[in-house]
């Protein structure tokens, strides 16, 4: 475990939290501010966590995936579309509709990942180009279908966006959520819980199972793995598709958990930030989750700054400009990639096609 890295992560989160506490403490008690910041941080980190896990499965198997952004966007759209279809055409109740939507989103992610696997494993396309193709394809398909299905005359939904079946309900953890004030942290929506659970599952799968050992072998030294009888192509396909499904679940967060609507380009770079989180976490599940929480905290800062806008002292007037506060996650990403916290070491065969 890389304690320096985790220490640095804790430090950044503490700084981001203190800024909000210092500004808001005149109006609201610090405990409430911290609680609400933590709850928001955990929630908005969800797509980043899932995106980072997606990258983790792919890259541990030796396939670079910069198409996570596109996979999330496509999954967000098709998951939302499936939920609306179920709700308005097949007249399912909202809850089953939403579940079908989440499944559709996961499958969409898997399908796009299948394409990425075919490009990078079978056709040996430059993997970064392959990922870019996925991103552009996702923007094109979702933009076209969004317009064609909802905004054209004579389309299925008659030229207006139908009422979506809402968002997934909160699930609270029985005892913890009943604690006064800080109980709010343990009251989150299902995809957020799933993301946290998957961090633990991924850690166990990667480091304590035969599957994980094989995956890492394929990503570190495919030739040696092949020699001992591991099917490199199969392992890479399977892990990229699992990764795609993670990204798909992350996409579902946008339209089925966060807000009940779709907008073109709504993933807004989260897939790329997730990749940075994975790198920052040095290709480990807990590291990636911690890094995702840093970006979540930066976003929570932005959300809270709008809330406390009036209370910002004149010396810190720059924080009143939401565009400036909005830069935090992006600048953090660039800072982290410089390796100031220690060298980031990718799997040895990351990005290299395997020639049998």
């Amino acid at each position, binding site marked *: 475990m890389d304690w320096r890295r985790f220490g640095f992560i804790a430090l950044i989160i503490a700084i981001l939290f203190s800024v909000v506490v210092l500004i808001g403490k005149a109006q609201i008690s610090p405990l409430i501010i911290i609680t609400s910041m933590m709850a928001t941080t955990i929630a908005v980190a969800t797509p980043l966590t899932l995106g980072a896990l997606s990258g983790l499965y792919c890259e541990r198997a030796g396939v*670079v995936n910069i198409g996570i952004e596109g996979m999330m966007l496509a999954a967000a759209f098709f998951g939302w579309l499936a939920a609306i279809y179920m709700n308005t055409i097949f007249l399912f109740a909202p809850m089953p509709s939403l579940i079908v939507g989440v499944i559709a989103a996961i499958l969409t992610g898997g399908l796009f990942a299948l394409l990425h696997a075919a490009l990078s494993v079978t056709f040996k396309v430059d993997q970064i180009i392959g990922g870019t193709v996925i991103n552009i394809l996702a923007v094109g398909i979702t933009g076209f279908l969004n317009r064609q299905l909802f905004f054209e005359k004579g389309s299925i939904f008659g030229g207006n966006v139908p009422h979506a079946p809402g968002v997934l309900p909160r699930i609270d953890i029985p005892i913890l959520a009943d604690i006064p004030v800080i109980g709010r942290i343990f009251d989150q929506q299902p995809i957020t819980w799933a993301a946290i659970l998957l961090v633990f599952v991924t850690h166990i799968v990667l480091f304590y199972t035969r599957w994980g050992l094989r995956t890492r072998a394929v990503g570190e030294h495919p030739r040696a793995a092949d020699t001992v009888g591991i099917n490199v192509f199969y392992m890479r396909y399977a892990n990229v598709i699992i990764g795609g499904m993670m990204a798909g679940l992350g996409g579902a967060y946008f339209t089925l958990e966060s807000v009940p609507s779709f907008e073109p380009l709504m993933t807004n770079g989260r897939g*790329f930030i997730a990749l940075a989180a994975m790198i920052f976490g040095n290709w480990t599940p807990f590291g990636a989750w911690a890094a995702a929480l840093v970006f979540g905290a930066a976003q929570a800062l932005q959300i809270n700054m709008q809330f406390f806008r009036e209370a910002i002292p004149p010396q810190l007037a720059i924080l009143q*400009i939401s565009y*400036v506060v909005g830069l935090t996650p992006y600048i953090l990403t660039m800072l982290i*990639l*410089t*390796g100031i916290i220690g060298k980031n070491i990718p799997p040895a065969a990351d990005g290299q096609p395997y020639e049998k």
Partner: protein
Amino acid sequence: MQSSEERFSNPILGLLRAAANALLVPLLAVLTAMIIGGIVIALAKGDPFYAYVGLFQGAFGSPKALSETAVWATPYIFAGLAVALAFKGGLFNIGAEGQLAFGAVMAAWIGYALPGVLGIDLPAIIHIPLAVGLGALTGALWAAIPGFLKAYTGGHEVINTIMMNYIALNLTSFLLNAPMKDPNPDNVIARTPLIAESARMPIIFEGFRLHWGFLLALGVAFLIWLLLWKTTMGYEIRTVGANPDAAKYAGINVKRTIVLTMALSGLLAGLAGAIEVTGLNYRHELGFSIGYGFDAIAIALLGKTHPAGVVLAAILFAAMRNGATRMQFLTQIPVDVISVIQALILLFVAADAIIRYIYRIRAREERVVLTRGWGG
């Protein structure tokens, strides 16, 4: 496979054959993408044949259509060259969008603020080059940052240029919403005031929007070709792109070359933005540049990162964008279908193995290394 004797006996025939070979896979990629696009149009209850006729008419059917296609092609050529040049140097510049936006903001500021705010009146012969030049320089500086980070810290340019796109979007949103916003009381849009007459690039034919920026783009494409294949700097860029280790042993300053390549790439992207402002829109407006960055990647790859190929690919993409409006008018298919077709073109160009497999073409050229993973 032709013999070397044959190639020497008729240089023109040899050149034509080489061109045909280079164009074969991209053309088949475009054809295949259009066929699949046709199926998509049919599924959307449109007539694919009629749609493509509309697309062609809209792009080339009249002098006005031709002029508009060239107008669309101008920023595509610059931005495509930007991405292609970076590829030649082994760098993937996904940040053309942000560099372009800053080029446009700077050109607009020089265009309106010098005479309007600072009270400096310049003749057009100085004002236009100043606006365009400083716009390009801003793009170069913005792109040099990820170049520097790549060369000296190892921060990967793919993620850094994407992050800088979002930073650029935030900063330009701020600039266009507050300090640089058009102060006209009727204005509610995030845009700059109009630039002065003296900063506007002249149009070529009276009555058409086509401006000298298009010819400049063609000229710059030629200059980039000269730079890459006829100068030491170009040789160094290509060597670093092909094999940085070998370049280091050959005595090339690899780090400096990486920064320089990114700066030149950003210069071209900045030019795209500056020319759009001085030649076409006469102001910068938020959101006009959305999507140029990704289109530029597709254009660079379709043009096989060669300046001549980039020009052809840019004109093709421009024709599609321009013709799409007429296509929508005739068939009610939303213009967004063009994005799907363009993504498919990119898919087939990137994965040329698919095209070779479908049409049974044997691979003859060696693979070109475009990018490397996080480690390299």
